């Protein structure tokens, strides 16, 4: 087996941003959160990701502002390091090697150059025991520092970071675990512990879930499993401690947070309501309801101006202190299982999969941003355990992205299966999918596979759905029956069956001229225009799991895998078996842009990947143990910019990327060395001006301005374009006496288009070409802005020339 050193599996996009509490910078402009193996810096105003602090090789488990320097941030990871970053510039300042996996990190002002980390107890690896350890960070100028000066503070703590908190600027430390709370005073080196009974008389569960300490008073707030919040006071006495109970949440309180002045207490839970309690006036509380999903973390910015809540659907909501939502940062929503599989929207190139309950999400992998949710079920989701609700189980796009087919089902215990097939058409005007046809009960049993005919040029699209009831049905867009106000709708065109066997998979050939349907052990090939059975392909016994037609030059091949660990390749011209090999393929997929096919094989608890061409005997690429566990879904996504890799092993990644989803719901992909270097370079390139909130658009703008300024310094101030009388008139006449903007627009734009011969502008051009290429579309957006108002142009008119020239 050849080692392909330059290709590795990485987390890229779609990682959890709600894994740990986010951190808001001192000036409330940035929000930092752990996301996979990196720390993401978001702008709290524009919701854009400004930086990605890469460097950790394990999952990042905590982010913490450095108490002595508010422009620096610590991050810890399971790779056993604590790293110090300058987050405004995105620079790694120092790496402290601890040597043990770190699960959370704390620090306080009272303890200079000491961080507290939670690590597993070393003596026994099996038991889930954790301890809180103080780490002295050595003050050396080196980049890589060994931090071996550890001292245990508390044993038997929980690995959940919200169960430990520092009180009163680090005077004491409070930790909860299960039914026990421990408060440790640093000065006296003494700890007090309090325990509760497991159940109250009314049946409430007393287990501690989270803790927060009041910043000024000796008051500790704890959240409990039954939704109660207890405010503990007077805990310096073993016996005379006292607590008051606040009860609003109906189930477990997941996060608690005091505001910096200690005037309010924020709490959140599964109700997805942020509750704001007045400290010492607990009867008065404010609510921010309908936040969308269960709250997992609540944080407050150090100046108290912003709150942020993390939600279970991988979302961070930024809330102003007047309890108003100001921004939402949405990551990839990962439900409990992805039943639709991974799809790529041909139009937007976005990844499409199950999102919120009853929704499909469209996720842009390039920008690592959720584009939108499409409500498929169109029923209110009820948060109640044990309630069966409609779920989207299948989805398919046609080749042009004009049609989307979805299947939703609900299985109630005592009732029959409810199935709905919905067809959605893309509406150019609203730029979204509009429901065209709903077919209730399209089949009598669960639908096993669904696909559109692939040919993009064909006039009529066909949808084929296969079901457990032994039939496959072809659906076609028919003409409106008699009413002419309604558009065309979908109806069933053909019902096919083969000896009462259950079809498991179906596949159209690339040109749409053939349909292959796998009926248990038999592969049947149909003609989709006449619906006649062309041939059946024999196969060694075993149910067909996957079927794929080859692409491009290999389109004469049909590949199939079965559950008896066989992969077969038929030549459709000869209708004979071309080759077969013994592999336990769990997933077989084809890249629509090349001849390549990928096969994921499950072996010994891990998954191997083979990339091959059906016509060639040797695989292009293979990697053992891509990830542990099974790969459930995978997809080839087309690249926007082709890679120019010459190496044979990584050529298959040139046109498209392979994303796959493991059974632990991690979205992984393959990355080449060249690609990573390019990414690193681009992130270093971004030098940021502090004064404006950073968005990619701003970065671009700022860069231009910066270079422009630099130029002006070096050369003599370039003469401004000869301002025409029209411009002068435009810019100096008051707005209310001007004619309509649309009237002036073309004239104005023409007047801005000055001759290209001016040499001074060419030097700007050459330096900014790369930037312009990357965000071409953005410029178009900018242009439209230009025309929308004259006064905007005035302020940015120097800048606006260049893109216009490129366009022309």
């Amino acid at each position: 087996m050849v080692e392909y050193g330059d290709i590795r599996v990485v987390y890229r996009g779609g990682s959890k941003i709600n894994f740990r509490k986010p951190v808001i910078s001192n000036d409330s402009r940035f929000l930092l959160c752990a996301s996979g193996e990196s720390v993401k810096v978001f702008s709290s105003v524009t919701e854009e990701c400004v930086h990605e602090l890469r460097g950790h090789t394990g999952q990042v488990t905590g982010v913490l502002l450095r108490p002595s320097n508010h422009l620096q941030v610590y991050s810890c990871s399971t790779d056993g390091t604590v790293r110090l970053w300058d987050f405004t510039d995105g620079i790694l300042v120092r790496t402290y090697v601890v040597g043990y996996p770190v699960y959370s990190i704390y620090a306080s002002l009272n303890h200079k150059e000491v961080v507290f980390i939670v690590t597993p107890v070393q003596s026994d690896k099996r038991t889930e025991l954790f301890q809180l350890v103080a780490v002295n960070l050595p003050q050396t100028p080196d980049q890589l520092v060994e931090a071996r000066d550890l001292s245990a503070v508390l044993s038997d703590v929980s690995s959940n970071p919200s169960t430990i908190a520092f009180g009163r600027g680090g005077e004491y430390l409070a930790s909860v675990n299960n039914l026990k709370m421990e408060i440790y005073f640093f000065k006296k080196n003494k700890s007090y512990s309090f325990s509760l009974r497991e159940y109250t008389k009314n049946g409430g569960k007393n287990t501690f879930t989270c803790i927060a300490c009041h910043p000024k008073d000796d008051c500790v707030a704890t959240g409990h499993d039954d939704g109660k919040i207890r405010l503990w006071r007077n805990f310096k006495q073993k016996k005379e401690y006292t607590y008051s109970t606040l009860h609003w949440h109906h189930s477990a309180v997941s996060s608690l947070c005091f505001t910096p002045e200690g005037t309010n207490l924020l709490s959140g839970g599964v109700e997805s309501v942020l509750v704001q309690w007045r400290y010492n006036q607990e009867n008065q509380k404010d609510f921010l309801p309908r936040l969308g999903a269960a709250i997992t973390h609540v944080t407050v910015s150090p100046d108290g101006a912003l709150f942020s809540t993390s939600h279970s659907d991988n979302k961070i909501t930024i809330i102003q202190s007047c309890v108003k939502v100001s921004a939402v940062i949405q990551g990839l929503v990962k439900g409990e299982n992805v039943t639709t599989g991974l799809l790529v929207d041909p139009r937007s190139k976005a990844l499409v999969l199950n999102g919120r309950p009853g929704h499909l999400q469209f996720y842009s992998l390039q920008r690592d941003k959720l584009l939108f949710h499409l409500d498929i079920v169109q029923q209110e989701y009820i948060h109640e355990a044990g309630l069966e609700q409609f779920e989207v189980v299948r989805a398919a796009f046609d080749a042009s992205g004009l049609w989307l087919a979805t299947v939703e089902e609900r299985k109630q215990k005592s009732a029959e299966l409810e199935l709905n097939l919905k067809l959605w058409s893309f509406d150019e005007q609203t730029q979204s999918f509009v429901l065209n046809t709903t077919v209730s009960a399209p089949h009598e049993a669960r639908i096993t596979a669904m696909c559109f005919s692939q040919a993009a040029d064909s006039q009529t699209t066909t949808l084929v759905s296969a079901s457990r009831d032994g039939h496959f049905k072809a659906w076609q867009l028919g003409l409106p029956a008699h009413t002419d106000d309604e558009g065309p709708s979908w109806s069933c065109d053909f019902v096919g069956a083969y000896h009462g066997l259950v079809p498991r998979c179906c596949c159209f050939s690339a040109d749409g001229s053939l349909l292959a349907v796998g009926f248990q052990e038999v592969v049947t090939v149909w003609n989709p225009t006449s619906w006649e059975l062309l041939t059946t392909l024999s196969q060694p016994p075993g149910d067909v799991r996957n079927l794929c037609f080859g692409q491009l030059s290999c389109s004469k091949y049909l590949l199939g895998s079965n559950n008896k660990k066989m992969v077969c390749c038929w030549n459709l011209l000869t209708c004979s078996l071309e080759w077969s090999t013994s592999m336990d393929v769990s997933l077989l997929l084809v890249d629509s842009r090349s001849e390549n096919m990928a096969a994921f094989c499950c072996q010994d608890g891990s998954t191997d990947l083979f990339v091959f061409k059906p016509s060639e005997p040797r695989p292009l690429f293979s990697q053992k143990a891509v990830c542990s566990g099974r790969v459930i879904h995978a997809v080839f996504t087309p690249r926007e910019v082709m890679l120019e890799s010459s190496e044979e092993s990584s050529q298959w990644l040139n046109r498209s990327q392979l994303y796959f989803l493991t059974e632990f719901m991690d979205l992984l992909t393959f990355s080449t060395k060249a690609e990573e270097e390019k990414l690193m370079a681009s992130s270093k390139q971004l030098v940021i001006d502090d004064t404006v909130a950073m968005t990619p658009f701003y970065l671009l703008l700022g860069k231009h301005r910066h270079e422009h300024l630099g130029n002006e310094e070096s050369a003599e101030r370039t003469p401004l374009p000869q301002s025409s009388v029209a411009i002068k008139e435009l810019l100096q006449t008051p707005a209310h006496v001007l004619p309509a903007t649309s009237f002036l627009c073309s004239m104005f734009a023409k007047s801005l288009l000055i001759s290209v011969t001016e040499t001074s502008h060419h030097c700007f051009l050459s330096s900014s070409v790369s930037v312009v290429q990357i965000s071409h579309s953005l410029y178009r957006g900018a242009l439209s802005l230009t025309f929308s108002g004259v006064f905007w142009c005035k302020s940015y008119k120097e800048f606006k020339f260049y893109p216009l020239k490129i366009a022309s």
Partner: protein
Amino acid sequence: MGEFKVHRIRFFNHMPSAIRVMAFNSHTERLVVARADGAVEIFNFADNYYQEKVIPGRDGKAVEALCWVGRRLFSAGLDGEITEYDLENLRPRNSMEAYGGPIWTISSNSQGTLLAAGCEDGTVKMFEVLEDRIQFQRNLSRQKGRIISLSWHPTGSQIAAGMLDMIKIFDAETGHATHRLLVERGLQRTSNSQEVVVWSVAFLSDHTIISGDSAGKVQIWDGITGTLVRTHLLTKWDVLVLAVSPDESSVIAGTSEGTVVQFQFISSTVDQQDKQWVRTRTFKSHSHDVRALVHTDTAVVSGGVDTQLVVRPLLDKVEKNTQESAMRKIIFPHRNLVSCAKKAGLLLFQFSDHLELWRLGESDGNGETRAHTRLTSNLRVGRFGEDNICCSALSPCGGWLAYATVSSVRLYRLQLDNNITPLVPLSRLQVSKLPKELNSVHQLSFSSDSSKLFASSILSSVIVASVKELECKYLHTFKPPSGEQPVHLLSPSEDGNWLATANTGGEIHVFDLHCSVPVCGSCPTAVSIHPFSCSLVSVHADQQIFEFSLKQKEFTAWSRKLQKQGMHPLWLQRDAPITRVTFNPNNPTHILLHDTSMFCIVDQILPLPEEKTRFYNQSVLQSLSLGERLRNSHAFKVYRNFQNLLCVDLMEDHSLVVVERPLLDIVSQLPAPVQQKKFAT
């Protein structure tokens, strides 16, 4: 072990009265509770919360305030009188008209020399407490509007009065008002025009004033400057009562929602000294208004409209997981309200204003423990006068009925038609001439042959009178050698030779023998003389059982063994006292005991329970295998099938009469509680 035919009776409509006000005397550890019907009950907290004394009330006399002055007890009500009680003879000693209209509150200073009364006409009247009476001293300066609540500063120099919309602070020396604290009207409820009533004030020694008002606020004021320090909004409804702990570190407030909220005086940070009042715990032990609160050193005692007295120990003050840390609810009186005529099969139910007489029907004896009781006739005896009934008795033959109020005793001759159809109503004849010695009586009892009437009277004496053919003749007065406490238990022996009496001082005397049983520390809650072995069985408030042989004049061997081994912890943890001891004539070794939650047959032959053994319910025990059953059987056989028992007695035909009073029936008769939203934001 014995099977009984059971008359299960649930038609005794006993309805406890709502608790109006309470006062606690920390020296004697006595809690006094006044109920809405005017009855005053005294509980001994040192003796397992036993209800020692009950002074019945009278019509039209509602007690609005109670106050201990030393060992003396004063009460005041809306009739405008201040009453002092005679706690030895269980009757009001004297009453004094205050001439200020209805009295809302009384309060004594800590020295016990002055009693202040807040009146409807806006005056605070000061009374001097003299040896035998109280004497009006003077009025503090008269205000507009009624005085609802009063609180003395511990030094006695100032007094705070809660009124409508304001609190006034008076100088006790000069009688002038020094401060006027205006209380904000309710913001949430109804309009601003409604006056806010300051239901309760507390004046602490650091000159902090805490007030609870009808707008649902607890406010903390600085009494020196007269400024508001802090407002805690507790409820949409009223804060009705406040109570301060003896060390002034904690204040509790009772609300209309049935909650009790605790405030504690704690420092905000550990090392600093500046303390503030912080709302801490909330107790919800009532369904209705909490009208009365007492904060003892270790517990919160609350009572209200739902008639229950709840003792909730504060867990930071008592040892955890001990008997002391268990919450107690006292619902039923600790004395018998039901008398049975064993021979005639009649039952007498005592209410506060009337008596009901029922005849037991034929039970369909099908071997089950449950059988129907069909009422065949009932007789209602209305009382005379305004005083409530304090005790009643029915003779075993069913021929005589006696009851007593504070001021008088009445005796009736019942004429039974045994042989004719049972539907003929009973007739009664009043015995008009009673000996004049029978005028103040706490307890009544008939001898087993129904020829004698025993009545406990003043100075713990017992009067014996013979009753025969519409005649009642005074025979004798037994005077115990010692003791001034009232006799609360009378138990004549079956053969008529002996009479056992017990008084609230804890002494048991057996007359005709003139023997005193050695005093044990706790008050007896039930005594009875065994019909055959002539031994006296007494059960005490601390749940101890003694058996005293009257022949040998010493504790029997069984009793000594029981004391030596000690009572079983589960037995000691029960919180209701045993109120009746009876014997099974068929099985002389069996003693039948009952409290409100269970009844128990103590078999003196079987071994005593070990420390670890459990008290199985007998129905559970019967479902076990034989070996298991033998292993778990011991002297204490507990039946929990019947709940909320008011009486368990064995009739002459060996059928068991069980009188139950289900709690749901009591709850359904309570007024509707205040409306509360369960889930609301």
